[in-house]
Structures are given as C-alpha cells and as structure tokens.
C-alpha cells in the first residue's frame, strides 16, 4: 500500500495535507494513494454549502462545526475560493472566520483555490473529499461561493446541500435565481437578526413553490391523509420527495444552529430511507465518470493535435473560411489540416 495512504489511515495529518496537495497539483503518486484509500471511503456524510459572497458561509460552517463537535463527531472542511483570472493567484481567507476551531484535533480545515478549468477543479475537489472521507472524518463540509457554475457543481457533489442567503443583500430573488436554489436541500437564511428577514423568507418560499410544484401538492396530500390514518401513510411519506426546508440562523451567536443540525439529520435520515442515498450516489458516480472521461479524452485528443494545426484552424475560422463545427469534425476525424504544408 502507498506510504502516504497508510499514514493517513493511521491519522497522520501531515500526510493528509501532503496528499491533498499532490492530488490538487495532479502530481504523480496521487492516483496510487487514492486507489489505496478508495475502499475506505463512503462513511462520511458530505455537506455542501454555497451561497452569495457575504451571506456568512464561513461563519456558519464554523458554528455548525462547533455544534457537531459537541456531539463528539469529527469534521473536515474544504473551503474553495476563487482564483484570480488575471494572476492565477488567490487569497484564501476562510480561516479568518474559523479561528474558534483551531486547536481541535477533531477538525481539519483545508483551503483550495478554483484554479483553471472547471473539470480540473471538479476532479481535485472530488479527490480531496474522498481523501478526507477515508481519513475517517464523520462529516466533510465543502464550502464554495455560489457565484458561478463550477462552484455550484462542487456543491452538488455533496449528499446534503445547504444554500445560504442573508436578508438585505439587494434583490433577494435575483441572488437565488441563478440556478442555485434548485440544488438546495436546506435553505439557510443567515443573519436572521437583520432587517428585511420577512422579505427574504417570503421570496424564498415563493421560489420554492415555483420550483417544486409537484412535490408540494404531493406533500399536502400526504399531510391530509396523515390526519386520519397515521400508520400506513408514514411509509408513503418515506417515498416522498424531500421538500427543501428553510432554517433561520444567526451564525455569530449560534442562534438556529440546533435547528439547522436537526434539518441536516432529517435529510440524512431521508436519504437512508428507501435507497435514496444509493440513488443519489449512483447519479453522482455517473456524472463523475462522464466528467473524468471528458477530461481524459480531451487531454488525449489535444496531445495528438499540434499547436500549429490548432492555430491554423483558429485563423481559418476567424477569416470565415470554415465554421467552428466543421473544424471540430475535422479534428475528430483525425484528419490533419494540411494546406499550409503543401
């Protein structure tokens, strides 16, 4: 077995940090260690947290982690921050809001920059989550800024997805329209002591009703039935879709955190019933396989296309001599692009 993998399974935190770097940089040795760790994965509950900048995600993660630690469970946090498109550098500042968690050996915090491609980040984040899972943490929390497609995709790797909002952040509905509301299992309205709370809650409820019309009517049906015959309907409720819940929190003083943990546990229980978790995992593996295939194929294809052929094609497209789709067909057919060589 790979040395790093063995050390990680024995609880060596330096080895854990090292392997995270290796997979992030797609360096040699990472795949070997990942393969050795893979049989040890599948035990952690993976929570994705996303939402607009300033909603208080890091503070919420900190408060949530403290509460979960009080139950004796261990937590690993993967905090993803955007890379500057200009310099390729990044400021990873999530630890500022997580200082209360330091000195706790049951917590491990790792910051990750989004770096280049969507595919690359997705791969690195998935691998990082697997490593943290194999290292034995009860919860793995992945925090991303919900400002772009890649971040939303990362949150979707989780089993339970929290979307965090805050009142008074401008146009409430705008902030959540960009496709992040649909992925929420739990909607957290943080900073609930702020003015504008009612508006935010109302906007979220409206969006939920628009987003889940079928599930809503289904639930009110169950609810009505439950009034008369509780016993048989309990099982049919189990089959029901999960209806996203709205939880209000004030992460800075811990208000609402117990309710949030209750909601997370309820979602966990929902997943465990009737094979929901298996279905979810199946879907996620399908997506991952396709992502990895796409990345691998593209890499292999680009290896076989010379930079010169590519730039000739770019020029031809720019001069309107060839539409882009024909250029792609040509490359896929394995045809070399030759006019300049004749």
């Amino acid at each position, binding site marked *: 077995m790979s040395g790093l993998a063995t050390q990680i399974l024995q609880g060596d*935190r*330096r080895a854990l*940090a*090292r392997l*995270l*770097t290796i997979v992030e*940089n797609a*360096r040699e040795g990472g795949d070997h260690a990942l393969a050795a760790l893979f049989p040890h994965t599948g035990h952690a509950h993976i929570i994705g947290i996303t939402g607009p900048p300033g909603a208080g995600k890091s503070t919420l993660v900190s408060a949530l982690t403290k509460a979960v630690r009080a139950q004796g469970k261990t937590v690993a946090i993967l905090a993803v921050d955007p*890379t*500057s498109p*200009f*310099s*390729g*550098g*990044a*400021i*990873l*500042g999530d*630890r*500022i809001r997580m*200082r209360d968690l*330091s*000195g706790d050996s049951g917590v*491990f*915090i*790792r*910051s990750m*920059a989004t*770096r280049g491609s969507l595919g690359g980040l997705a791969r690195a984040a998935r691998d990082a989550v697997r490593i943290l899972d194999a290292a034995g943490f009860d919860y793995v929390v992945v925090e991303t800024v919900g400002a772009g497609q890649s971040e939303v995709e990362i949150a979707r790797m989780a089993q339970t997805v929290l979307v965090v909002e805050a009142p008074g952040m401008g146009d409430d509905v705008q902030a959540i329209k960009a496709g992040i509301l649909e992925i929420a299992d739990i909607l957290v309205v943080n900073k609930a002591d702020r003015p504008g709370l009612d508006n935010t809650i109302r906007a979220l409820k409206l969006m939920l009703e628009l987003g889940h019309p079928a599930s809503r009517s289904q639930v009110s049906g169950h609810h009505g039935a439950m009034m008369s015959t509780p016993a048989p309907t309990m099982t049919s409720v189990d089959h029901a879709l999960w209806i996203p819940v709205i939880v209000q929190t004030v992460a800075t003083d811990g208000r609402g955190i117990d309710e949030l943990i209750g909601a997370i546990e309820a979602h966990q229980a929902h997943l465990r019933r009737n094979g929901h978790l298996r279905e979810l995992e199946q879907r996620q593996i399908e997506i991952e396989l396709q992502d990895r295939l796409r990345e691998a194929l593209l890499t292999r294809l680009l290896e076989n296309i010379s930079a010169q052929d590519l730039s000739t094609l770019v020029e031809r497209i720019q001069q309107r001599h060839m539409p882009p789709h024909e250029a792609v067909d040509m490359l896929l057919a394995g045809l070399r692009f030759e006019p300049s060589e004749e």
Partner: protein
Amino acid sequence: MSSERPIRVLIGKPGLDGHDRGAKVIARALRDAGMEVVYTGLRQTPEMIAEAALQEDVDVVGLSILSGAHMALVPRIREVMNSSGLEDVPLIIGGIIPDVDKPSLEAMGVRGIFGPGANTEEIAGFIRTLVAAKDKDAPA
C-alpha cells in the same frame, strides 16, 4: 512540473497588535504575483499558525509583526512548527524589526526580513527563490 504549480504561502499575524494593513497588502501582492495566499487574520497564537501551516501544506510562512514582540513570538512559532514536523517550511517576517534583532532572528532560522517600504515584487521574488531551492533539495 513543480514550477507550474502555484506557490502556497501562509500570511499570519501573531500577537496582539491589531494592525493588519501591511499583512493584507502583502497578501494581495503575492496573489497578484500568482501565489495562493492563506490569510489567517489577526491575533494568531503560535499554535494556530503552525496548525494552519500544516493543514494547508504551505511552502512558506510569512509573519507580520508590528508589536515589537518578535523576539518572543518568532522562536516560539519556529519551535511549534518544528515539533509538528514543519522543519522544512521557511519563515519570513515583515513589520517593524530593529536592525539589532536581525542577526538573532536569522540565527533562529528566519530566512527573510522585510521592513516597511519593502518592494512587494522583491518579496515575491524572494519567496520564489526559497521555494525553488527547497524543491531542488527534496524533489517530491
């Protein structure tokens, strides 16, 4: 290969002074130089800095100290880092450091000392050289 990956730097402010403008300027400058900067914020204990450096697997730790407590803080941080197995992670310091203290700080293993007005490009270049030398020593 190693030259392509972004360098990871931790910028920490140990001790009790609350002036983090310098630390933030450096963090931003290093980001603009293409580095990934883990910024830990104010009032970090030596243990917090060592723990963050370990979990984040940074190449270099930069400390901003304006309180005058560098002769107490730096050896303590080096010691805690060493006992966490981070002997190979170099320390650099920025802030108000009197010339008389520089030799002793260097003797404690501080690799670079930068005062107010230090050129940020020079600091970025210094970090690149440190990391390149480290990668050459231990190709892993």
